[in-house]
């Protein structure tokens, strides 16, 4: 069983605190993605788990064993790096077999393990090439092969897809997910791309400025963000946020004079005069006749379209509510010209309210 446990883990760089005492329990076989903007401490956390960075304070344990001061080689982990980190002077075969070679495994055993990994990742044709002769995607596969060859307890991925072009990235994402289904090991995966986090993770750990902001399944983070940061980080396009003030108990006056009712989830949680941010996703603001038919409270708005981004199955419409630019989605799109005025439906059940001071979600 290989759970990974972080308890009050802190990282200092000199005086600068990069990671602020985080707690995290990762279960055996779980695919956990650490996500956040650059500089949020996600890579540092991963590297502390790997043993590439000293742990300033707190405790990291892998499979129930405290590993704080153990060098990487005694942690039985493997890692895929952002720049692949292939050994340039070795062939693909040597790269794959290297960890077993330094562990002084039998020649035949190494060959078997290498061939097996090559089979899983489809590297058989490339075995005698050097990294310099491989394409980006091939290098990425070799890096992954190198990680699986030694059957580690835990896989660590440090932004493994960020150097690939968009198409290849999608393809490799699928391969990583398949790999996880095949080998079933615990995976800790770091990325700054929320799409990768959403598509890959069993659980997402969203970090900001060295703190964990929210931990949960992709849908939990998408549907119930704990604060405006999560709301605008997860999901594409980001959640629309409009400043407003609560008036009475069930109305929010938006900055430009528009009134919306307080969404059901937040009713009874707000006080008169409270400054809030009113949030909703583009998927929940749709033009009449181009929306998904759904039950629930709706508000009708007439808005002027300022810009359109046709994506084929849908078009993202840019418009303006109360002086704030917001995005809406049009399903089964028809051509829309900038300046056109459309009737929109806002799904009030799917709206969120955040406290303007603390940025935290107000939810029952």
């Amino acid at each position, binding site marked *: 069983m290989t759970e990974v446990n972080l308890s009050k883990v802190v990282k200092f760089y000199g005086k600068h605190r990069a990671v602020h005492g985080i707690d995290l329990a990762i279960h055996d076989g779980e695919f956990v993605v650490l996500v956040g903007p650059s500089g949020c401490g996600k890579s540092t956390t991963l590297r502390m788990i790997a043993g590439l960075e000293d742990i300033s304070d707190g405790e990291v344990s892998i499979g129930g064993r405290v590993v704080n001061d153990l*060098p990487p*080689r005694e942690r039985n982990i493997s*890692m895929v790096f952002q*720049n692949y*980190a292939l*050994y340039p002077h070795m062939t693909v075969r040597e790269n794959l077999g290297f960890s077993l070679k330094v562990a002084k495994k039998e020649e035949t055993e190494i060959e078997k393990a290498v061939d097996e990994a090559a089979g899983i990742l489809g590297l058989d044709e490339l075995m005698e090439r050097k990294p310099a002769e491989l394409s980006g995607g091939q290098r990425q596969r070799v890096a992954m092969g190198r990680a699986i060859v030694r059957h580690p307890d835990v896989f660590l991925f440090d932004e493994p897809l960020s150097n690939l072009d968009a198409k290849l990235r999608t393809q490799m994402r699928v391969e990583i997910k398949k790999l996880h289904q095949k080998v079933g090991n615990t995976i800790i995966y770091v990325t700054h791309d929320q799409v990768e986090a959403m598509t890959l993770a069993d659980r997402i750990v969203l970090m900001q400025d060295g703190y964990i902001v929210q931990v949960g399944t992709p849908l939990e983070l998408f549907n119930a963000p704990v604060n405006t940061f999560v709301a605008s980080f997860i999901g594409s396009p980001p959640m629309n946020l409009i400043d407003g003030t609560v008036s009475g108990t069930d109305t929010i006056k938006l900055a430009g004079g528009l009134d919306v009712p307080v969404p059901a989830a937040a009713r009874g949680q707000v006080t008169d005069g409270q400054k809030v941010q009113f949030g909703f996703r583009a998927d929940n603001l749709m033009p009449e006749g181009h929306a998904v038919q759904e039950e629930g409270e709706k508000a009708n708005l007439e808005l002027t379209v300022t810009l359109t981004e046709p994506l084929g199955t849908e078009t993202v419409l840019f418009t303006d509510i109360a002086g704030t630019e917001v995005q809406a989605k049009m399903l089964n799109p028809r051509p829309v010209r900038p300046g056109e005025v459309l009737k929109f439906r806002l799904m009030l059940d799917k709206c969120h309210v955040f406290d303007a001071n603390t940025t935290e979600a107000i939810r029952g």
Partner: protein
Amino acid sequence: MLRRRFPEWFVLLLPAIIVIAAVVLIPLIFSLYSSFTPYKLTRPSTLWTWVGTYNYEKILTDAKFWAAFGRTVLFLTIVLNLELVLGLGIALLMNKVTWGQRTLRTILMFPMMFSPILVGFQFKFIFNDNIGLVNNALQSMGFNVALPWLVDGKLAMFSIIFAEVWMSTSVFAILILAGLFAMPRDPLEAAKVDGCTPWQSFRHITLPFLMPFIFIAMTIRSLDVARAYDIVQIMTGGGPARRTELLWTLMSRTGYVDARMGLANAMGYVSILLSIVFTIYFFHKLSAARAQIGMGG
């Protein structure tokens, strides 16, 4: 006119070629010729007597020459290897330093600025058996000895090697350190995660990557191995009793003291050949290492 007849690159290279031809090539051709004559400075007419390969036969059958030749090769082998190992060690030490690295690196370059002749005098002074720093320190620590550093054959060789290594290890240390700085961190970390001990990481990852840098240092050093002449000339002059005689000191004595230029030039050719062999060998190694690490092109 010139431009029309020669390509641009040749015009650009021409001044270099002319100067080198005038100052190096022509004298070398002259010395090649004179190495086939019994030319003596004191009797200029001897320049016109052709003796064929007499000088070469003479040095090839001369035990003193072979002793100096063997000693030179041995000296170079010991010195270059020692410098490489020490330089590598120093570079690794420096790479781990977390504070004041710039200052330390500047100090490290110290010996590179010293004139070889100055290094010779400096160590002649320090190893002086009567007033030298080493013996004085030994005596002050209670050893009642006056080690004949430059008078005893073996100790003299040691002293010379020490001086040479002191002067030139920096070249290796600095270049290898530059290599360590240029080294991507990822493969090293991957190796750590792959289960390498520090020694295994060094052996399988760091060292192969440093090879081109090591060979650059070797090539640069092999270009001026003959600088050792200055040191030896000052510290022992090839003595005592030829125990530290190298090819270069033997050649210079034959030419300038005994005035036997023809013979000295023949030796000169052997020493040139030796230098060229070393240089080409390391150039060759350099491009091989470069290709291996995937830096070629």
